[in-house]
């Protein structure tokens, strides 16, 4: 169980997050929605400790994560794998090595520098790639892959960490619709089949509704909504996305990435 307790984060004088509290049971798939700059990424980065909370506490199964140092901290980072919007693979390394990187926190620094991985780990990497439909790409350089393939390789790398939690920061924001579906299905599969907790930042509400057990809506650094997808009302959606009350044309589809949705004519052309 992941407990986020009154976590606050300030950058200079700006409050990125003001006192956020969430309890996420093991095995849940949570979608965090909100506008760009609402504080979604900051929250994920603090769970992984890529960023430090200004105050408040984050703990996993009763153990405080926010206090970890040194080896312990690296161990924790390995246990909550991160998926990035821009995939963050090492472009010049081949796919199999990128996937095996998920194991390095379990090796000593020196042996890992000469790529000494066990036969079991290599087999595990190939089978993880196969599960994500990428086994045939194992020997290609990561930079030669399409975006959707790269993101699936990144998920395979995350699986190699044997994570308790996968944190996905806008995992489909740079992908075409078909690849986006494949990546979301892969995240759903590791959540369902492996029991891994998945916390996923998403721009688009329809994706969150379709794939997540629970939706958390964040606006201006505070949690506005926390509940089932079915409980999310159009009025609440407007508040989360900060739409003025009189803008009747705004609805859920406006947050969708699918083409053909014109929210309103651009002013200068309409005039």
């Amino acid at each position, binding site marked *: 169980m992941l407990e986020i307790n009154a976590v606050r984060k300030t950058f200079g004088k700006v409050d990125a997050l003001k006192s956020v509290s969430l309890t996420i049971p093991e095995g849940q798939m949570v979608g965090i929605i909100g506008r760009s700059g609402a504080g979604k990424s900051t929250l994920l980065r603090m769970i992984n400790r890529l960023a430090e909370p200004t105050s408040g506490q984050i703990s996993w199964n009763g153990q405080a994560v926010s206090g970890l140092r040194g080896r312990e901290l690296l161990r924790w980072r390995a246990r909550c794998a991160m998926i990035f919007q821009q995939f963050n693979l090492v472009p010049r390394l081949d796919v199999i090595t990128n996937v095996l990187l998920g194991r390095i926190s379990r090796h000593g620094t020196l042996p890992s520098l000469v790529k000494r991985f066990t*036969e079991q780990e290599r*087999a595990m*990497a190939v089978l993880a790639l196969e599960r994500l439909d990428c086994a045939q790409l194992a020997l290609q350089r990561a930079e030669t892959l399409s975006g959707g393939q790269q993101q699936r390789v990144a998920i395979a790398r995350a699986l190699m960490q044997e994570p308790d939690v996968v944190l996905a920061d806008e995992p489909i924001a740079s992908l075409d619709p078909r690849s986006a579906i494949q990546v979301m299905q892969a995240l759903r599969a590791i959540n369902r089949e492996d029991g891994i907790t998945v916390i996923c930042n998403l721009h688009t509400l329809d994706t969150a509704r379709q794939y997540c057990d629970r939706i958390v809506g964040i606006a201006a650094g505070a949690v506005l909504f926390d509940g089932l997808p079915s409980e999310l009302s159009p009025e609440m959606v407007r508040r989360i996305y900060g739409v003025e009350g009189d803008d009747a044309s705004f609805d859920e589809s406006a947050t969708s990435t699918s083409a053909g949705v014109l929210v309103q004519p651009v002013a200068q052309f309409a005039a």
Partner: protein
Amino acid sequence: MILRPSDMGASAIARARTLSPGSFGAPFLQRVQRWLLGGAFFILTAYCLVLFEMSPLRLWDGFGKLVQVVGQMFPPTAKGAALDYAYAMLQTVAMAFLGTVIAAVLAVPLGFACARNMVPRWIVRFVFRRSSDVLRGVDQLVWALIFVRAVGLGPLAGILAIIIADTGTLAKLYSEAIENIDRKAIEGVRASGADPVQTMRFGVLPQVLPIMLSNVLYIFESNTRSATILGIVGAGGIGFFLADRIRTMLWEEACFILLMILATVYVIDWMSQRLRARITGAESTPALH
């Protein structure tokens, strides 16, 4: 159903091996090839060490004499010639400056002419590339010796040597920068109806200018260092004094000159580094932890 290494029994490993044999290490022949190459490299290095009698004993011997010389260098003194030295130092920096500026300008057309994406006709490119190779392939010092014969002792020979050698070097660096630019911007400019020269001016130059300037600054830094050597062959500047004081074993004065050179190089390095960071808009990269 999460996979763990302990779940990888013989059958799982066998399946993974058939799925992607290459993931379990390079093929046998490739591995043999790597070992052979590594071995050859090692033998060549060892052979060179033997050839030049780089024995630890000789190094130790030389080290002893070096300590002696360094001992004679202190305290460094100018013996009343400080102003002469300062003037010569200034001359060296001025030589490097003038030479670099002229080379930087001359290299622009040459750099464009050597770039594959600017000159599609390979024979034209070939001629320009080989001529820039000639300029660059002969060392600055050799050019200096030639120009001392041609125009006589003094800074002019040094400046000419810098211009000739660095025009070649910078043309090469420019052309590489030009070849690596983003094609999209060029397409955008061309699509609005620009002619080839306009395309170079607005599609190419804004992209490569920061890289060119950064290259020029680096060459200037490097030239303030190497311009010292030019003086030693009589091509003007502080190097003349340094060579003379070493030849006559006036170690204290040689040391004074060396320290002066070090201070100058340091100041110029520092200034050009700050300038370069500004030009290229130095990006901040995240720390490693």
